[in-house]
């Protein structure tokens, strides 16, 4: 398959007009005036914009529960029986058919992260999937991406009213520190059964698994920073972070990845507190910032990353930089950047051909979406219902 003459936005900041050859589900080569092989299908993308498929760092796609199930039930990424469940695997929350039913390819999305919610102090591990298929094992791009944790007041809302711990930030931070300390010190003793929670967390304290931390405020980020100073191997990823000013030395010096969302979810009063100017400052200073619609707690529009991008455009005024925030940066944070999230030879052919640049104009619509080299949506296709 040869896609000719498109303007290729690689998702890493560059734009070139070139040809792009797909083979066996991958991008085989990108170059000028590539010659079609005998019998090779050719698509003329002259005047069109080719973007990587969007990657939603933390999403609810494919997560069943509540009204989507035959009986009332909690969401499958929301194990609210205990606030400390680091031994759980977010992979099992994902239902391939439920994600596929949303027809996300028609909205430019090709990959999503699935994380335990931030209702738990330590919720379990994060996985990433493509957005179309049946078998989660085939759709999975990566498991064991990181450990989801939270010092967010959602913990208090979830447990405090039962009543159970935590009811206060005191409990949250004391146990955040205590669990990490116990994990760091943990050694399996032959005469005792293994502590699977501490074994899971030890991978965090040893730096094998990044720690994703949902923080509601700048103060929460500062407390996390203080606690993590005792655990130098931990690799933090900040999630939410309302109240960031973009001048936090800890984040700037260590280029700590940040995942934020603009207020595009219903009743999301919290996201109103996000200072987009601060996000722009972080990006301009080289901090990897990903835009994501939710943090596993809320349902989003399928257009969510487009709208998040529109908000960022109003402050960053740089469409290639904003594109990074919904493609290569979330892919890098999820550790799937060698698979997807940018247009480079050797990566999966997860790409979207638009008739205009959706970062800049609402007139941009999708001509074709490729997932692993297969066309999963093209203009004029019937839109799915449930």
């Amino acid at each position, binding site marked *: 398959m040869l896609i000719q003459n498109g303007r290729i936005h690689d998702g890493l900041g560059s734009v070139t007009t070139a040809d792009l050859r797909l083979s066996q589900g991958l991008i085989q080569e990108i170059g000028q005036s590539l010659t079609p092989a005998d019998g090779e299908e050719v698509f003329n993308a002259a005047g069109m914009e080719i973007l990587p498929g969007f990657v939603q760092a933390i999403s*609810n796609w494919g997560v069943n529960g509540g*009204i989507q199930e035959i009986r009332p039930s909690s969401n499958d990424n929301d194990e609210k029986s205990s606030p400390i469940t680091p031994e759980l695997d977010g992979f099992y929350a994902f239902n391939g058919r439920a994600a596929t039913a949303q027809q996300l390819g028609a909205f430019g999305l090709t990959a999503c992260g699935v994380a335990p919610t931030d209702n738990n102090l330590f919720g379990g591990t994060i996985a990433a999937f493509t957005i179309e298929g049946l078998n989660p094992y085939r759709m999975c791009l990566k498991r064991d991406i990181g450990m989801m944790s939270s010092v967010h007041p959602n913990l208090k809302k979830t447990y405090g009213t039962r009543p159970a711990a935590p009811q206060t930030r005191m409990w949250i931070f004391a146990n955040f520190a205590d669990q990490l300390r116990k994990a760091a010190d943990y050694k399996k003793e032959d005469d005792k059964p293994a502590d699977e929670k501490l074994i899971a967390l030890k991978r965090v304290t040893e730096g094998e698994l990044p720690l994703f931390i949902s923080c509601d405020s700048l103060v929460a980020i500062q407390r996390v920073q203080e606690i993590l100073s005792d655990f130098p191997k931990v690799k933090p990823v900040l999630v939410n972070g309302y109240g960031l000013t973009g001048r936090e030395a800890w984040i700037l010096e260590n280029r700590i990845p940040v995942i934020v969302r603009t207020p595009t*979810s*219903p009743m*999301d009063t919290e996201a109103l507190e996000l200072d987009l100017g601060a996000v722009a400052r972080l990006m301009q200073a080289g901090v990897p910032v990903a835009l994501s619609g939710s943090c596993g707690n809320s349902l989003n529009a399928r257009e969510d990353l487009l709208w998040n991008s529109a908000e960022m*455009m109003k402050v960053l005024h740089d469409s290639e930089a904003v594109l990074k925030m919904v493609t290569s940066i979330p892919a890098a944070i999820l550790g799937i950047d060698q698979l997807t999230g940018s247009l480079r030879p050797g990566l999966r052919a997860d790409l979207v051909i638009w008739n205009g640049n959706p970062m800049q*104009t*609402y007139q941009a619509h999708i001509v074709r979406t490729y997932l692993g080299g297969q066309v999963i949506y093209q203009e004029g296709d019937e839109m799915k219902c*449930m």
Partner: protein
Amino acid sequence: MYVIQNGTLYTMDGQGVLQADLRMENGKITQIGTNLSTEGATVIDAAGKCVTPGFVDPHSHAGGLEASGEQDLNEMTNPLTPELDAYYAINPDSKDFRLLIRQGITTSCLAPGSANVVGGWVFACKSAGKDRVVKRPVALKAAMGINPKGCYAGKNQAPMTRMAIANILRGYLRKVKEYMDKKEAAGNDPEKLPPFDMGLEHGIPVLKQEIPLKVHSYMHDMMTVLEIAREFDIRITLDHALGASDYYEELCDPHVQGVIFGPTCEPLFGGEGGKLDPWCCKGLDDRGVPVAVMTDSPVTVVNMLTYEMGEAVRWGMDPIRALAMVTCGSAKILNIDSRVGSLTVGKDADLLIWDKLPSLHTDAILEQVFIDGESVYQKED
């Protein structure tokens, strides 16, 4: 008194798009033309800027619902509460209105929630200014489907089904008709007047086609509403209207005063949320069906109107037609277009200054907002 000079005026009336000056005084637009006198006026240089009418949000609950659950718009004790009036629910000092101004919304149609089959009167309200109420009532609120079902089924009360909802709505309108007929027959004879009933009184302007029945309705519920509208010869607005693209032919009906689509900040659900079709805006507009979009504020998100215009454009709508969905179009559906919704001499001086056209450019920034000729928001540098 202000004169906005050299702006690109999206008048949204018969004048089209003009390069002109605009003068406003005493709360009204008093002059549009080139080289207007600036005597006694504060001059605003809008060269290179877009000037649009203030946005008119045709379906909102701002100032009456809080994210915390505190609310005054869903009286969930009786599925039939036509006697209620959203006017008494709204806190005009709510911070919601400051947020709305920053989105360019200068007038909102504030409605009771959708818990009840008939919920009460709806009114139109400015986001700021001295005289906030534009029109009261603008509609009578009704609701179909899962919301009234969900509210009452758990209490073992009707309506538990769509069957009962249709029955309750029809029964109410029949009673209003009887009440109205009795009143008319009584003429000036107080002996013959039926006992005063505020709930039935609130339905009379609906049956007289003075205001529409504003019906929360999704998918096939819209067809039920249309049947009832034809039966009683009333005007309706179909609000939310997810799935409207399934019924283009049917919706070309004089009983349909407008389709108020959205919000679209959700994924596909089953049942009445099983179709999410922002492309219906163009489909309806192309067929001459009045169409608008809503925030449903504060249930939904900041900038929802802009995203909804944007998505309609993505699905092929002309950006100026999309702008009409939140200005002249929504004002006409609410029947408040004699005051708001366009840049027309004599109308309220509610207008927005943008650096770019917001229905086209993702990075368009709202720079200044005027309500009743007063500057109520200015972007910080």
